[in-house]
């Protein structure tokens, strides 16, 4: 059987297995080991599963994963972000759509303290969403705001997705993180512009706060709330400054960040028994979920590598279909979004990336730049039905008056904005590359 056929067969079997609803790692791992046994039998076929475990152990940057997950849980469970939300609420409330714009600001700050989108999602859905609904904001718009805003978590440094990408693409994490800064802020800016324009055209969507409510808050209180904004800046600084200066490694910085978040929660008196228990237990659960999926996906990827599937696909595109590199790149991004809507996000990351990244490198594109395209595509895939990590989380966390229909309808304009941001970064690579080149002086 030709190798492309085997690869296609493996891929479709895996999709079918995933549809049965078995745990994702089991479905991927099973297809991987069965394919390995059929292909290579007792000459290495038995070892491919365990070889992945050893490889996983040696992936040093992966140690950041539990640290960032722990940080995210501490931040969201301890409700340390309440004051942060209050700050934006008080300062932005006077504008049309100001609370929604403030929520985007809140999400940017949370993203700067955290590498996944889960924390932003939890904070947005439990703190910001009820407040916004109470003030008469349009429910479809605010649901979209929180989903789109929290997805910035994986683009603004620190970012776990970029750590995983860095391992697969063998690119420096520091440069990738810096490359995410400008596109992340730009995307936040585009969201804000979108909200501002829509609320100007149709003020019902995002009414201003009442005069009474605003004048109730004394100036001193307003200034005191500004201090809340310091917390994310401090946490971001203790994590990033030693890392960018090369005093500590990435992994060590993530541990410092986790300690800083933990210390902040303790100092503010928010680290109760329940918060502690939930953070520690959920960190184990989510870390295990990630690690076991990556373990299985590495075995799957190893079989794919053994087949030379990447080379086969590259030949298919460049030789037989005779496409230009840019066409291939655009096709890849489109197929990626399509797959992202079907595949679980982690699975997508560890299965699709090893396939695409070498191809992009072979076509002569900058892999740091591609990392940003890749991350933005992941963000879009997170939010698009039928499978979107953020969609599921939103459904689990949102108040009952928000239906699944609302959630689906809410994301459309934001996905369009994100696709626009993706196109901008594709056309102007300097958006991503300027900052890392400036800092690392290339």
């Amino acid at each position, binding site marked *: 059987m030709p190798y492309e056929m085997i690869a296609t067969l493996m891929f479709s079997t895996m999709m079918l297995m995933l549809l049965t609803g*078995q745990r994702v790692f089991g479905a991927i791992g099973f297809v*991987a080991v069965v394919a390995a046994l059929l292909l290579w039998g007792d000459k290495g076929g038995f*070892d*491919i*599963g365990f070889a992945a475990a050893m490889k996983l*152990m040696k992936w040093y940057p992966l140690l950041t994963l*539990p640290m960032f997950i722990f940080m995210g849980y501490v931040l969201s469970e301890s409700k340390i972000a309440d004051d942060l939300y209050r700050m934006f609420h008080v300062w932005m409330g006077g504008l049309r759509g100001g609370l929604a714009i403030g929520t985007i600001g809140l999400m940017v700050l949370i993203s700067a303290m955290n590498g996944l989108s889960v924390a932003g999602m939890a904070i947005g859905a439990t703190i910001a969403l009820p407040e916004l609904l109470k003030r008469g904001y349009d429910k479809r718009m605010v649901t979209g705001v929180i989903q789109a805003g929290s997805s910035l978590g994986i683009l603004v440094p620190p970012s776990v997705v970029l750590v995983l990408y860095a391992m697969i693409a063998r690119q420096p994490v520091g440069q990738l993180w810096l490359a995410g800064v400008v596109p992340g802020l730009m995307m936040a800016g585009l969201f804000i512009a979108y909200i501002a324009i829509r609320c100007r055209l149709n003020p019902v969507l995002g009414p201003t706060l009442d005069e009474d409510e605003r004048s109730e808050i004394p100036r001193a209180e307003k200034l005191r709330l500004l201090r809340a904004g310091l917390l994310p800046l401090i946490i971001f600084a203790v994590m990033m400054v030693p890392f960018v200066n090369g005093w500590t490694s990435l992994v060590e910085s993530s541990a410092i960040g986790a*300690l800083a978040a933990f210390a902040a929660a303790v100092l503010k008196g928010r680290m109760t028994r329940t918060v502690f228990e939930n953070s520690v237990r959920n960190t184990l659960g989510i870390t295990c979920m990630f690690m076991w999926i990556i373990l299985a996906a590495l075995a799957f990827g190893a079989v794919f590598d053994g087949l030379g599937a990447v080379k086969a696909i590259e030949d298919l595109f460049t030789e037989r279909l005779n496409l230009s590199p840019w066409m291939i790149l655009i096709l890849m991004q489109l197929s990626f979004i399509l797959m992202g809507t079907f595949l679980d996000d982690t699975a997508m990351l560890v299965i699709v990336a090893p396939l695409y990244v070498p191809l992009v490198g072979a076509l002569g594109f900058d892999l740091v730049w591609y990392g940003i395209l890749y991350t933005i595509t992941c963000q879009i895939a997170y939010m698009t039905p039928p499978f979107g990590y953020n969609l599921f989380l939103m459904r689990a966390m949102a108040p009952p008056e928000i239906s699944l229909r609302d959630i689906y309808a809410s994301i459309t304009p934001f996905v369009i904005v994100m696709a626009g941001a993706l196109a901008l970064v594709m056309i102007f690579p300097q958006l991503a590359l300027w900052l890392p080149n400036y800092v690392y002086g290339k």
Partner: protein
Amino acid sequence: MTGMLRGFIRGVDAVNHRLGRVVMYGIFVLMGILLWSSVSKTFFLPSLWTLEMAQFVMVGYYVLGGPYSIQLGSNVRMDLLYGGWSDRRKAWFDLITVCFLIFYLCVLIYGAVSSTAYSLGYWKDAPFSFLFGVLTGAEDIGRMEQSSSAWRPYMWPIKVVMIVGFVLMLLQCLSELFKDVLRLKGETV
């Protein structure tokens, strides 16, 4: 029969639950090692052992914590179809597909055992009987594998941890399988 299944489920769940409750504090051990690593690097000589030790702790954390994460239901499933099914249909499908998961774990365990035997200086084709022989004293340990880093730790302890973790994971999956059997018999689990 039902009594035996119930006994198995109770026993396995209890062991994995207790182990998971201990292992989950491993996050602080990991954090401690990494913080020590940054402190020693900045103020004294960088430690040689921190990097690999952190990796070993991470392996223990996710492998030994795995069964507990299954109990917690943290392992994502694709719920496009699954989410809409009745409990009975879910149980039927799980009953069948969990066997695939178990097969995967068996291959993992086989790989772990032969790699452990290798790390104890054995490279013929009967790793199971060799490891058994080591335990009973019938086989001699050969040249032990060491990591190729400057610290040069022995590799067998972490591999043994992985065998233990994979076996516990296997037992947990069997427990899930038996729970589905009981559910299909119409009993409450």
